[in-house]
């Protein structure tokens, strides 16, 4: 339980207040909920910072990221970190694939509260959005404690561990043409935590594959993305690749057996890859 609440009014103020004892308070659906994964003595509310709002098309000012292969675009879609899931669903500017990912959060009331930035920052293994952002080649705009703007692609942000934990996520940046992005979420009920959320994007033959596997990992599946970019794979080949990926350890838990999760992950990847590579959503 937090002991202190600070209402930040500027991005710089919010970023400067973040430390190991504090946490950003965005929509509150994670921090304030029962069994939250976030605990902090001080909460820095960022709900009143106007610069974190808004959805717009802007000139791409981000540097290209050679390590992750992200290219620099002409114009990009900027989604302010404090935009709620419902803001995204209602926006005319947001592509359908991202709206679909936002609708994975079945509760309208929760969608009214939960923010894009908050969901990304949590990097949960049942994330509604992250696999889709990975598949779409999204980037994050952040502000560090010293007020420096930092850009990182979603893949790099994910793989960086806690490196950027204290940065304030300012916006999610999406290429206007991300190619075809297809996602699927498997959960017991619409309100349950997802056992699996998978997203496959394909642009100019290059496949991006993101997956949130509950109690296993939130992961960009680089090797499989490469293989799928270079050739078509059948269910068996994908299953073999999933099984061969030693970094993916599947637990036997309330979401199902390891065999079930491996199989499901494989057939969903297979189906989504066919759709994405075939240009169908």
């Amino acid at each position, binding site marked *: 339980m937090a002991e202190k*609440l600070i209402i930040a009014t500027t991005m710089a103020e919010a970023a400067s207040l973040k430390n190991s004892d504090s946490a950003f308070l965005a929509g509150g659906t994670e921090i304030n*909920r029962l069994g939250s994964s976030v605990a902090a003595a001080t909460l820095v509310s960022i*709900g009143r910072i106007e610069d974190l709002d808004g959805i717009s098309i802007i000139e791409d000012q981000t540097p290209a990221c050679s390590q992750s292969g992200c290219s620099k675009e002409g114009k990009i879609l900027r989604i302010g970190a404090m935009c709620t899931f419902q803001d995204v669903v209602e926006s005319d500017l947001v592509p359908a694939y991202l709206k679909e990912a936002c609708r994975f959060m079945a509760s309208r009331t929760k969608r009214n509260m939960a923010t894009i930035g908050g969901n990304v920052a949590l990097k949960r293994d049942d994330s509604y959005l992250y696999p889709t952002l990975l598949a779409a080649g999204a980037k994050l705009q952040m502000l560090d404690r010293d007020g420096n703007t930092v850009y990182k692609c979603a893949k790099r942000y994910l793989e960086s561990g806690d490196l950027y934990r204290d940065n304030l996520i300012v916006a999610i940046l999406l290429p206007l043409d991300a190619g075809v992005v297809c996602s699927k979420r498997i959960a017991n009920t619409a309100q349950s935590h997802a056992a699996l959320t998978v997203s496959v994007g394909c642009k100019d033959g290059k496949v991006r594959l993101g997956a949130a596997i509950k109690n296993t990992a939130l992961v960009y599946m680089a090797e499989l993305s490469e293989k799928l970019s270079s050739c078509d794979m059948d269910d068996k080949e994908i299953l073999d690749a999933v099984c061969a990926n030693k970094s993916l350890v599947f637990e036997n838990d309330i979401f199902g057996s390891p065999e079930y999760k491996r199989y499901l992950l494989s057939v969903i990847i297979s189906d989504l890859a066919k759709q994405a590579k075939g240009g169908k959503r």
Partner: protein
Amino acid sequence: MRIDCIINSKHRSFDIDPTMKLRDMLLLNGNFAVRDSDDSEGFCGSDTVLVDGTPVFANLVLAGEVNGCEIRTPDGLGSSQHLTVVQQAMIDAGIVQSAYNAPAAALLLTWLLENNPNPSKEDIKDALSGIFIRDAGYEHYYLAVKLALERMHNGSYESPIAPSFRPNLDVIGKPVSKIDGPQLVAGERAFVEDFATPDTCYMVVLRSPHASAYINSIDDSEARKVEGVVEILTAYNTPDTHYMQAGQGNPEPSPHDRRLFNLKVRHVGDRVAAVIAETLEAAKEACSLIKVDYEVLPAVFTVEEAMAPGAPLVHNGVVEYRAGAPADLEEYNKLAGDPREGKVVYQFPLKADIHKNIAASNKGEIGNVDEAFANSDAVVEATYQTSQIQHTPLETHICFAQMQGGRLVVHASTQVPYHVRRIVGWVTGLPENKIHVIKTRVGGGYGSKQDILIEDLTGYAAYVTGRPVLCHNTREEEFIANSTRHPMRVHVKMSGNKDGKITGIFMEVCANTGPYGNHCLTVPMNSCSKTLPLFKCDNMRYDLKVYYTNTPPAGAYQGYGTPKGTYGIMMAMAELADKLGIDYKDLVLKNHVEEGYMLEILKGLGEGREGAVVPVGSCGLHEAIKTGCDMIGWGKKEISEDPDWKIGKGFAMIMQGSGLPGLDHAEAIAKLETDGTVILNSGGADIGTGLDTISAKIVAEVLKLPMDKITVISGDTDSCAFDTGAYASSGTFFSGNASLVATNNLKDMILKEAAFQMGENVEDLDVRAPGEVYSKKTEKALSYYELSHTAISGEGHGQMIAHGSYVTKASSVPYGGHFAQVAVNIRTGEIKVQKFYAIQDAGTPINPEIALCQMYGAVMKSIGHSLYEDMKLDEKGNCLTANMTDYGAPMISEAPEDFKAVLVDVNDAYGPFGAKSISEIACNGAAPAIGIAIHDACGVWLRSWPMTPEKILKALGKI
């Protein structure tokens, strides 16, 4: 921090900690209709408010964030005296039932219509996607919106609300607003939590972390030092009284196998100690400081483990019998173990053997089943397993008790106020005249509030401390320390011939009662007694055993044992049809009972006594099956455009009871007040199902009084007379009949008094609207007002007060057919319920709109049980799904795409105005209907709950 905001159009300022939750701030402001059902999980939506015009969960918002904001709460809509169009439409549509979430839902629908004047079905679904409705389902929410819009646009409703029955009657069988609807939808004081006093102490229970352990010692010395602690209760300072928590007729067919606190804990979550403190925080802190030394014991979690030779024993104490003790009891008790085991006391023999973990057993047979099996064309044999599931009422268990004038007053959210009084009397030692139980409105029961799960301890705590005490279960406690549906293993063997005749049925039921034996005999009995009598079969046998284990406790749950038995027996019947090569529908039609068929099988299926063999009474089963088959297009194969999705259809015939003939007892008192109005005191417990409205309608119908001249007070042990309670589908039939008897008696008194006052013969008089006596002979009339006024003034005969008592041996059985169309993805195992049609015979549905909603609600529950809900335990007995999100309760997203409830018109001979029960039976059909449809879709029989995608894939050989 100073928080300035506008709440329901009024400026408000608070000087509070900004990290306080918004809901807590609103409670300070008196907005108690902003409730909490999930301990801030963001699931149930009871805490929904609007902040700057947007629906949010108040428990997930901090007070400091709303500074300068405008907030609307459910209680800011309309009062019960001045309802808004939306609130009224919700009542009229029949969705305001137990209603814990009705105010929040009213707020959401109001918000929807303010922002979208012509919402589509998808818009309504989206608006309600964050609110959990367990009682009435979601279907009539669409109707409520439609009604509200019609009234907004045209000033009146145009759409029919529900079908009407019995044109010769005025209010019976017609949609009439539920009488407690305004209070509930407006969010006025109604539930236990609303009656706690400012000086209330809070009780928090320390629970066992072990599935089985002896308590060596408890050190509460540090806990007692916490400021504000009033008392700490443990096994060492509470009575050595053995009882049980099932609210059943006395003597109960359940063993008395527990004390307030035991020295052996028998499940994770079992009571160890209770702290009563002046604040909740102090109680929690003190709880955390209690030191307990346990001697951990091996545990058993399944019936297979419990029945294994040498299995750890859940109970191994001394056995006593109040009646019918066996001759070898002394020898038997020589096997008793550690004194900390306590005792097991039977009111009469239950064919139990605690040394084999058997809590109860029974068996019986008609005809010759083995011979039938040997001489039939086909025999099928399969085992069906049901899982442990929880009722999840929105209002978690709660009790508020205090001493007043030397008496213990208990505010309880209960289905059984008189059983609460009796059991609280047992544990406190108080006689019943010193205990006053007030049943408040009940925010969802579904059987779990048939058990006295917290009232015993809360009542005792208030009695020994002399302080007002509130105990309110957390959602986790609902799962681990409450009651659940008994997991069952139902083995069915069924034989038939090629002519479509079923020749023999054998059911073997092994039930898991958990650590205590609440309902341990009667729930599994129901698995047989409410399924076998569906069949015209001369050879039937049942054998049931109930095992103690160390899982969370089991108890009563809507449908009782019937959903499990129905799942097994109907699935087996479909498997038999498959094997015989006969269409399942034809097999059903050839073998179901009809009116007049003598039910020999009932002889051995009484509740701990011999059952009465009776013929089938009014029966709408055939019509339900025919109607449902026509609606769903039975026999027509549906083909999906996507080859991965396979479509199938299934159905199940269902039955229940209407109370327990020969056991249940209901009473009512009808009073003609001095102005000619009537107050009916009903012993019945309206748990949101509209029972009070039924009683009011009965008075209105008999005395020809307008509904607003009738008040029903129910479930108050001081002012009402005895009633066994709202369980076993008894409400309409027993409590309703008691109201009818009392009202008829009052009518007789009115006519007699009127004859005296009018100088007429009683035979020449009758009553008529709007509440007067008239003479068929002289055409003179006397209003109830004048009649009553004269009767109590000067030399009158006194107030007319009539008592009605109802018992019966008659059995009125509701029947029905539930139909499902499912789509199964053979690649991913996903299952979608595309269509669900519930066709039921409820006799005369006295409240048809409420009846339909109860059918929708019960079906939604059972779809949940069949497909999603599951209390998963780890190897140490910890529940891994003890919250709403992980547990898997279905919400509007899981509702069938095409969902219909239909009432078959049947007039029963014994029910009040021909009524039978409605709600429980609707829990019985979904599992077999869906299971059979899954087989029709993809060819696999799923023989265990929940029927999951993983099980589909395994059955298909995909994994």
